[in-house]
């Protein structure tokens, strides 16, 4: 379970541009939920993910993960339990290292990075099997540098690498936004499969309303640092893309756009 309790977040404190994003923001995500988060630019979606992961500091409130207060836990330590895939496909892999080396380094997460050989020969068949499930032919390119792969291939690898080791939470930060529609569909299906297989508690930020409606079992819409729509279970199942669009338009009209 992941809880955000009374989170405050200000930007540009002490300047004329001071902006309050979150003022007492609350959110509770239960185990096994797959939450899709939608909202316009500046609504606080990505800030929320960064606060969960510790990439940015908060100005108040508490973050509780599985009953443990992690508000002051360093970013890298939080990733013991979290896997994250970014919008930019180059963020989740090492471009100058080969596919095999990337798989090996991700496989070692949670263990010590010591002076043993980086690639264990006995694991290579396992990597090949994981890669073959992507249906991208990567299993035959083990010694190709990841920098030579396409964005879609790299994002598929990022997803694979982020979920290879036992984690509890998966954070998806607009992870299909930089891909063409067809590749985005493939990555989205892969995501759904891995979330179901590993029973991961997932938070997915997306601008694609169709994905938000089709995938996951809870949908949240954010606006100016507040949750304006929160549907789970059957309510979520009955929601349509048009319903969300309507709410979107209403909000935009309020803003005077």
């Amino acid at each position: 379970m992941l809880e955000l309790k009374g989170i405050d977040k200000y930007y540009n404190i002490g300047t004329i541009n001071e902006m309050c994003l979150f003022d007492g923001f609350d959110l509770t995500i239960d185990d096994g939920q797959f939450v899709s988060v939608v909202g316009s630019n500046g609504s606080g979606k990505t800030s929320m993910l960064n606060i969960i992961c510790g990439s940015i500091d908060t100005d108040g409130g508490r973050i509780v993960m599985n009953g443990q207060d992690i508000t002051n836990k360093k970013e890298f330590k939080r990733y013991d339990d979290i896997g994250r895939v970014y919008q930019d496909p180059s963020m989740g892999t090492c471009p100058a290292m080969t596919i095999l080396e990337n798989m090996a380094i991700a496989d070692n997460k949670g263990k010590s990075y010591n002076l043993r050989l980086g690639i264990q020969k006995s694991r290579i068949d396992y990597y090949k099997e994981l890669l073959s499930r992507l249906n991208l032919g990567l299993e035959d390119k083990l010694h190709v540098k990841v920098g030579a792969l396409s964005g879609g291939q790299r994002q598929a690898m990022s997803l694979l690498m982020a979920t290879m080791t036992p984690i509890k939470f998966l954070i998806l930060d607009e992870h299909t936004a930089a891909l063409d529609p067809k590749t985005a569909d493939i990555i989205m299906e892969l995501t759904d499969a891995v979330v179901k297989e590993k029973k991961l508690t997932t938070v997915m930020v997306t601008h694609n309303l169709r994905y938000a409606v089709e995938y996951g079992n809870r949908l949240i819409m954010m606006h100016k640092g507040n949750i304006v729509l929160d549907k789970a279970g059957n309510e979520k199942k009955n929601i349509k893309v048009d319903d969300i669009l309507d709410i979107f338009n209403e909000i935009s009209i309020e803003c005077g756009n």
Partner: protein
Amino acid sequence: MGGIIIGVLEQGFIYGIMALGVYITYKILDFPDLTTDGSFPAGAALTAVMITSGFNPYLTLIVSFIFGMFIGALTGIIHVKFKVRDLLSGIIMMTALYSINLRIAGKANVPLFSQETVFDNGFLSGIMPESLASYQTVIIAFILTVIAKILLDAYLKTKSGFLLRAVGDNETLVTSLAKDIGIVKITGLAIANGLIALSGSIMCQQQRFFDASMGTGTVVIGLASVIIGTNVFKNLTLMKATTAVIIGSVVYKGCVAFAIGCGMSSTDLKLVTAALFLIILIVTMDRKKKVKKNA
């Protein structure tokens, strides 16, 4: 002529070990580390004192390496823990080391007279055939460089080595792997300066003296070697970058020897060093901030 070539090879191999250290900081970590100008003579100072005090010359290699690691770790801690910019962290350490090296050595110039060195000792003269006597130094320098290279190659294939390469490539990924990038950077700087101090130790034994100003311009030689090596041989996929860097060091020393041979005075050495480096930067177009072209 033959003497010049042998001299170039000797210097090229010995500075090649230093260039391996610069390769770690500049190419792998993307950290312009000026500590080099201080850690190179630090290894030499320690070696000069140990040898004149009667220690085994082979022991000085290990002690210098460890001392260099300590120096590199300090640079890393200044940068990571106190958030001082990379260039400034190196400048602080380089400046401090100038005095520290003088403290260690006791004076600005320590000559090694008849003491045994790794290039010249009882054990070696027992096994080295008479005919190879004039090549003895270059052979030893070559062997030491190859050992350093093999050990570095082996390290870069370990899990820890993977993490080091990943930090230079994509810091975000290393954080996602639940590892502290700061610790990895400190480790990388430690290994790099260990190699640089080791190179200084070997240089001191080859030229048979320590001089307080011998470190000036070391980082330029190292960067030039790395850039020559990695640019000239970048299309040879079979050649490891570490090999290319050592060859780059030999090539660079050859260029300097050629320039001096063309009538420059030996006091112009640093000017030649700097001018050649500038030419290399312009020719290879490496002067632009390394863009992540693979991203």
